[in-house]
């Protein structure tokens, strides 16, 4: 008759003992993985701009142009997001289209952000666009807009900085001609760095997204 075995509980404890740290390790890992999953779900996704931000944003060189109420320096707008558009008032198609779209975008911003986004149209036709004409034109789209012009040399230097091209076309008289020109919108962040460039199609297709981009630039600057 075999002897009763009473050492079995001791043996089972001896087997369980080395497993406990393993379970603790597995449990800890599960907690870490769960925490990572939750963090990934709740963390804000990185913001994606409609226009790919320039990878080498450089601070725009200050310039001085003329408005109906006197000289305006680009640096006057430091601390604000600045949208620059180059166009001319005699344009019956693209320029008023983009100005209306800019007014729509600017007007859709919350009031607190609207004051921190400056919009300026710079004439590529300084021969016909006087400061007074530019003021009337810009204010017709939004009283907050700035209409800027200057000497041909001053305009040329500003345009060169933003790689804006322009030239007269189809001239049939001293005052009868069109301009062909780059019609993009250049966005400077509050540190005056050229950050985003929008084409006319961007303005037409996704004005809400552009308004969000501008707000994000302001948040990033705060």
């Amino acid at each position, binding site marked *: 008759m075999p002897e009763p075995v009473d050492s079995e509980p001791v043996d089972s404890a001896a087997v369980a003992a080395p497993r406990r740290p393993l379970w603790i390790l597995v449990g800890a890992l599960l907690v870490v993985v769960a925490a990572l999953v939750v963090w990934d779900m709740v963390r804000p996704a990185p913001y994606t701009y409609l226009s790919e931000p320039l990878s080498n944003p450089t601070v725009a060189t200050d310039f001085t142009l003329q408005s109906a109420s006197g000289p305006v320096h680009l640096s006057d707008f430091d601390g604000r997001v600045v949208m620059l558009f180059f166009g001319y008032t005699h344009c*019956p*198609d693209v320029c008023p289209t983009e100005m209306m779209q800019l007014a729509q975008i600017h007007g859709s911003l919350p009031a607190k952000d609207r004051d921190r986004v400056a919009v300026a149209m710079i004439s590529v036709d300084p021969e016909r666009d006087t400061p007074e004409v530019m003021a*009337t*034109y810009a204010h*017709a789209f939004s009283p907050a807009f700035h209409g800027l012009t200057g000497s041909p040399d001053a305009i040329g230097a500003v345009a060169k900085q933003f*790689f804006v091209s322009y030239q007269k076309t189809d001239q049939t008289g001293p005052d009868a001609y069109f301009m062909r*020109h780059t019609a*993009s919108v250049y966005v400077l962040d509050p540190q005056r760095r050229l950050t985003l460039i929008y084409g*006319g199609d961007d303005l037409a297709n996704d004005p809400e997204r552009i308004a969000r981009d501008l707000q994000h630039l302001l948040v990033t600057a705060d």
Partner: protein
Amino acid sequence: MRHRRTTAAARGLVWLAALTALMALTAALAAPPPLHLEDACVRWIPAPVPNTSLYGALVNPTDQDLHLVGATTSMATSCMPMTTRKQDTGSPSGPIVSMVPVDALTVPAHGRLKLEPGGDHLMLMGLTAPLSEGTVIELSLRFEGAAPLTVRAPVLRK
């Protein structure tokens, strides 16, 4: 007897006339509308800016292409068909846009020509008076080989 026969003939004539009128009405309703401009508008522009554009969609139900070559209106000294072109230069600054005068804009047979911002449009040059939103401008559109088309377009901010 003769009287009864006459009355029957008169009734027949009345029915025939009614049927003919009905057929004519049906044909009139079924016929496509002639060349016309849909969603017409002249873009509001602040004075003293002298130029603006007519937009809309010209619909041509005829069997032949029609060519818009110009227009006359008391509101502008001249009107010309234009098209806006974009030239991608590869510059990071984006494409260069230019408006190009064209001899004519074609409205295809059984098709339409959209006059829209950034595309084909009719330019009104030398506005004779400041534009007011909501006022209606009358223009006579001229086509090559076809009768002029009178259109009325409201001045809109769009």
